[in-house]
């Protein structure tokens, strides 16, 4: 057991910190810090800056731009990015379809997609959930029927995040409706979002923003070459992909940044002639959240420092569960510090309410999503009870 980072890792951390705080445009980092919506251009700009420095896809195979880093280095990379308010490389590209193509795709697909995926020249979106297939993803009903050299896709996807920006979609489709197990008859297809027969309908969320969409498919023709991996093995790839989705999902750096901001904001509000930050209940609440976050960060470090044998550490399952709860607790804290100011949520120019207080409630409402996506927290509890406790 050893607390300190090695001198090499200390230097690595410093290198990451310097890069993120000096090479990513301040205006973009300010957008993230203020919890405003990051635009497509800002995502693209950031990912290209990172990719040019080899920092967009360090977890990919080296021949496709990866870095052969240890899990601890990847953890530090991600934490420093979050602490610096840098928008992370687009997860659909770098954590989801990229690693799947790199692992299961053929050479032609790798060459065609991976460089553009790393550089965000292609913006990918995810076609997984359906109206009747949420946590029970394997019950999906979108079909692909073989017709000559094409697959013909019909059905509907939903919760497709940032699909409005997307060039391509990776999509789970049922290719064998007769398979005995519902997990068996699923394949992974990729196709352009401007293919004839694809329709996108934005879904407005509680915060007034548009980040998710419904996507409809009507006789969309997809060349057979654009099936990734093997036919009817799509469920394996989905599990592989969702495993990646949970990496880094603790978002410790993001929550840490939010708690630091909360302390500042609590100094700006006066209660009974004193700053709210000096209220013992408020101070204790912040201290307690901060301590929970320390416990989570240490658990994340415990997990990444021990991934040597390749098997996931059992405690990794707590990261998503607790990480999402703490993100939500931090957004709730903002609303409570803002108090009555939080009602000015959609105030524009001419309002005296500071921006952080205006966005507090929309942000809180939006963040209800984090305990739902990426395998809901109830799915996480099922995993813990089943695979760890043997229940």
């Amino acid at each position, binding site marked *: *057991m*050893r*607390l*300190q*980072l*090695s001198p090499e*890792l200390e230097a690595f951390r410093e290198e990451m910190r310097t890069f993120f705080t000096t090479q990513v445009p301040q205006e973009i980092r300010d957008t993230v810090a203020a919890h405003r919506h990051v635009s497509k251009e800002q995502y693209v700009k950031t990912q290209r800056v990172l990719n040019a420095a080899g920092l967009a896809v360090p977890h990919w195979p080296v021949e496709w731009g990866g870095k052969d880093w240890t899990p*601890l280095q990847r953890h530090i990379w991600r934490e420093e990015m979050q*602490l610096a308010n840098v928008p992370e490389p687009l997860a659909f590209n770098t954590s989801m379809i990229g690693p799947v193509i790199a692992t299961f795709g053929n050479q032609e697909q790798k060459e065609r997609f991976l460089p553009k995926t790393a550089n965000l020249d292609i913006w990918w979106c995810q076609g997984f959930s359906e109206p009747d297939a949420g946590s029970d993803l394997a019950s999906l009903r979108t079909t692909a029927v073989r017709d000559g050299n094409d697959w013909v896709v019909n059905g509907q996807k939903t919760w497709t995040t940032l699909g409005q920006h997307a060039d391509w979609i990776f999509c789970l489709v049922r290719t064998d409706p007769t398979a005995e197990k519902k997990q068996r008859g699923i394949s992974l297809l990729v196709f352009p979002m401007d293919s004839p027969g694809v329709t996108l309908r934005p879904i407005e969320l509680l915060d007034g923003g548009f980040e998710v969409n419904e996507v409809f498919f009507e006789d969309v023709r997809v060349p057979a070459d654009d099936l990734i991996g093997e036919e009817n093995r799509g469920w394996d790839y989905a599990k592989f992909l969702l495993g990646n989705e949970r990496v880094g999902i603790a978002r410790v750096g993001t929550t*840490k*940044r939010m*708690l*630091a901001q909360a*302390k500042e904001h609590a*100094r700006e509000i006066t209660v009974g002639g004193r700053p709210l*930050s*000096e209220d*013992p209940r408020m*101070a*204790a609440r*912040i*201290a*307690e959240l*901060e*301590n*929970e*976050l*320390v*416990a*989570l*960060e*240490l*658990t994340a*470090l*415990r997990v990444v*420092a*021990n991934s040597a044998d390749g098997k996931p550490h059992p*405690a990794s399952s*707590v990261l998503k*569960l*607790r990480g999402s709860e703490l993100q939500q607790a931090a957004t709730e804290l903002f609303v409570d510090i803002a108090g009555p100011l939080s009602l000015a949520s959609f105030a524009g120019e001419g309002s005296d309410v500071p921006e952080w207080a205006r966005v507090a409630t929309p942000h809180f409402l939006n963040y209800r999503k984090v305990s739902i996506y990426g395998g809901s927290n*109830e799915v*996480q*509890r*099922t995993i*813990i*009870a*089943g695979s*760890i*406790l*043997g*229940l």
Partner: protein
Amino acid sequence: MNFDYDSEQNDLREAVRGLLARSYSDSEQRRSVVAADPGFDEKTWSRLAEMGLLGLPFTEEDGGMGAGPVEVAIVAEEIGRVLAPEPFIETVVLAGGLVAAVGTAEQKGEILGGIAEGTTIAVFAHAEPGTRWTPTAEGVTATRSGDGWTLTGVKEPVPSGARADVLVVSAVVDGGTGLFLVQGDASGLNRTGYRTHDGTRAANVRFEGTPAVTLGAGGDQTAAIERALAEARIAYGHEAIGAMDTALRTTAAYLKTRKQFGVTLNKFQALTFRAADMYVSLELARSTALWASMVQEAGGDVVQAADRARLQVSRAGRHIGKEAIQLHGGIGVTAEYSVGHYTSRLTAIDHLLGDGDWAADRLAANVASYETVDPLGAPYA
């Protein structure tokens, strides 16, 4: 940075586990041991001494093994795992830690040597009725008497206070709180021992002009007490982790075997989800406790690290202890079945040296003075 035990530490854990299994392989053995005074098994105590565990953190010069906080944590966790009632933390970590920190060479040789050999039980008599969890003394005062000192006042509850051969006593002196040594057979020392809810023993210790000698050079020792308490909090944190681990395993095993409505209880999601939450609490507390020991080893701010561990372990201990009983049902409240005793011990640990709210208040007092916490940076590493 890594959280894994090395091979020697793994061997130590196996050895301690094996030793304690001889005495406490089932909860009936423990029940019969704690039923009679002194509330622990003297034979087990001797075996701990033979293995060198009672001198673990002391220097070789003082008769110890020169091991670090991580080794102490390993022993504490194994103690918690089987609820071994031997006063390891009280004697070795707390009283022994104070003697090691401030004692004279002679005092260290005599007392630490005796502890390491298993012939001396030393405890820290510090708590006083009507106060709580301060590093200072208020009700026991020290008065000069010739070349030495006498103590007057009451300490209670003092863990293993009636059995102890030597008491390390905190007392009011000019300018602060001093530390004194009182022999168990001293005149003017009245001790009334009793059984506590967790099966251990505590005592009312009354000093009536009791002769005492200063530990070390004398004077105000508040800082040394604060530090020793912090180190003991960390060790109790590991004991609690061991206890929580067993409470959770016992509960999970029970859910798989107990049948109601024609099926085993693990068919009820309302129960398995609660068990999953217990696991989350346990692992977060474990990470924090391990970290606190590493901070101690690295020479970081052990007081603040101990407060962080105390808060996390306290919350987890209450959560797991209460749920372990509830998920068992009525049998969890019986003395005959093991799991409730874990809850009882976790409750005792929670109140020995400061509970979660107490730790949260201390952290809150400091929360505005920094921007973010870096557990791998200053002031911890």
